[in-house]
């Protein structure tokens, strides 16, 4: 086994990893960590999407929304399979962890309360997923993950298209549907911004980057997401606290990230700046729907009462 420093250099120079025998402990740990976040995020998006998918306004919409759920479960399956290759037990990961032990992104600890929120989640949150995963697909040093992501990227593209199509429809249909869409975006947009984590200048070092498990930094990924989401926001004339800054040639936020979030009312308090350690505490203590969602996956029964 090469030294850690030499190993990282080799990875930066394009070395690909196929199996655990080639990994250092540090690499394996970093890989497990990101795969757990990825698998849990895919998995928990399914119960998050579930209620509104079953209440979709038409049969066609219902079929599309259930297909998104199927895809997300399949993507979770992929991540857990990869974790299994690293020595974890798939069944334990899915069925035997406590709700607070799941490492999914905070966005999927939220209740999705109407169809406008559901399609906005497809259009905004799945876009965040695409940004993260396409970086890994292009740049990762872990070959089995790279291969598996072909399916994922393809399917996420469809979710995005579905989300965008419906967002367009709601924006143009009536004042009422437009208002519901705007209300969904009001809390989902900053959620998407926060998705990518701590800014680069606050983060001292990043194992996942050094091992080239991923290729882009948090800020680069966030900028990617903004540059893909903002044109749609502009096209649909939706209000979001961000704009393109001609001088700096990038999208900039109109608030000082991070700010406080009131999960009960799904409201961001833009005039209440907090620290990143506050954000991480909020993530760790999990959001309002965390227990319900994990329970839906683990219970083996259906609660028929609506």
């Amino acid at each position, binding site marked *: 086994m090469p030294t850690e420093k030499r190993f990282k250099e080799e990875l930066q120079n394009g070395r690909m990893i196929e199996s655990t025998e080639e990994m250092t402990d540090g690499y394996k740990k970093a890989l497990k960590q990101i795969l757990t976040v990825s698998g849990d995020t895919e*998995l928990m998006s*399914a*119960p998050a999407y*579930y209620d*509104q*998918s*079953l*209440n*979709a*306004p*038409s*049969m*066609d*919409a*219902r*079929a599309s929304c*259930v*297909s998104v*759920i*199927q895809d997300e*479960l*399949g993507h*979770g*399956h992929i991540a*857990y399979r990869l974790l299994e290759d690293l020595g974890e037990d*798939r*069944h334990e990961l*899915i069925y035997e962890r406590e709700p607070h032990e799941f490492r999914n992104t905070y966005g999927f600890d939220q209740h999705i309360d*109407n*169809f*406008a929120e559901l399609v906005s989640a497809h259009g905004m949150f799945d876009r965040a997923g695409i940004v993260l995963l396409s970086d890994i697909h292009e740049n990762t040093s872990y070959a089995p993950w790279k291969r598996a992501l072909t399916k994922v990227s393809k399917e996420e593209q469809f979710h995005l298209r579905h989300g965008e199509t*419906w967002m367009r*429809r*709601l924006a143009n*249909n009536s004042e*009422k*549907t437009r208002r*519901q869409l705007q209300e969904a975006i009001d809390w989902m947009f900053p959620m998407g911004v926060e998705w990518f984590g701590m800014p680069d200048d606050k983060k001292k070092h990043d194992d996942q980057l050094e091992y080239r498990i991923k290729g882009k930094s948090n800020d680069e990924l966030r900028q990617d997401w903004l540059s893909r989401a903002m044109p749609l926001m502009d096209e649909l004339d939706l209000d979001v606290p961000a704009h393109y800054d001609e001088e700096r040639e990038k999208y900039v936020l109109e608030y000082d990230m991070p700010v406080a979030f009131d999960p009960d009312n799904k409201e961001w308090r833009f005039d209440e700046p907090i620290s990143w350690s506050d954000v991480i505490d909020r993530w760790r203590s999990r959001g309002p729907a965390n227990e319900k969602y994990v329970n*839906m*996956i683990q*219970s*083996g*029964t*259906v609660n*028929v*009462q*609506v």
Partner: protein
Amino acid sequence: MSDWPEPAVDYVQAITDTKILLGQRYAQWSLAGPSLEDDIGGASAAQEEIGHVRQLVRELEGQGRDPDWLNGDREPEEFANAASLDRIDGNWAEYLASIAPTDRAAWYMLDAIDRDDLDGLITKIGEDEYFHLEYHDARLETLADEDPETIQATLEETLPQALALIGPAAHDESADPLYDAGFTDRPAAELREAFAEHYRELFADTDVSLEAVDWDAPPIGEWDETRRRADAGAIAEADVTQISGKQNELFAMN
């Protein structure tokens, strides 16, 4: 298009409504399976059932039925679904032993339809159904081993309900109105035989006994020819709310 013999519309309506409910139950259980593979299977089958419904609804529209009504804007008692799907609120083994015979019964009924203009549609549905039925049988085999009591107890209830959907035993070659009208190429009695034979064979070497199953149910006198079932039960109001998309009506696009 409006040349179906009269009882055929109710026949296809019962298949369609059963498939609406299959789609609903598959989707409801798509997160509650014992493995991720089972969840994925449920979500996949749900879409396929909705796909079948979408096409069958068009055919029924062609026979003069109202599209909104078809798509769920009606009372629970107006759904002609198999009674086995009214509610499934036990555990996963009960769920499987409820949907499996129902999906199979609905497929046998479609397969018996003898009309050139529906040939392609039914062939296409059969491509999906092959995998639904394989999945159920493969799963019933493993569950017959793990939890024979639940499977047996559930089947004792759901097999007769599925048989009621196919039609009463009295509907043989000489008495089945659909066969008589040439809409199907086999009478209900023959489909019932094939159906019963299939399950007898599937469980032959297992701990699940089908001896207590009432293979002759329902008596024709108790059978409702419109809803193709023998009891007055119905799905829950909550199911209709979801199926018709009422909660998100505001977002429906025409």
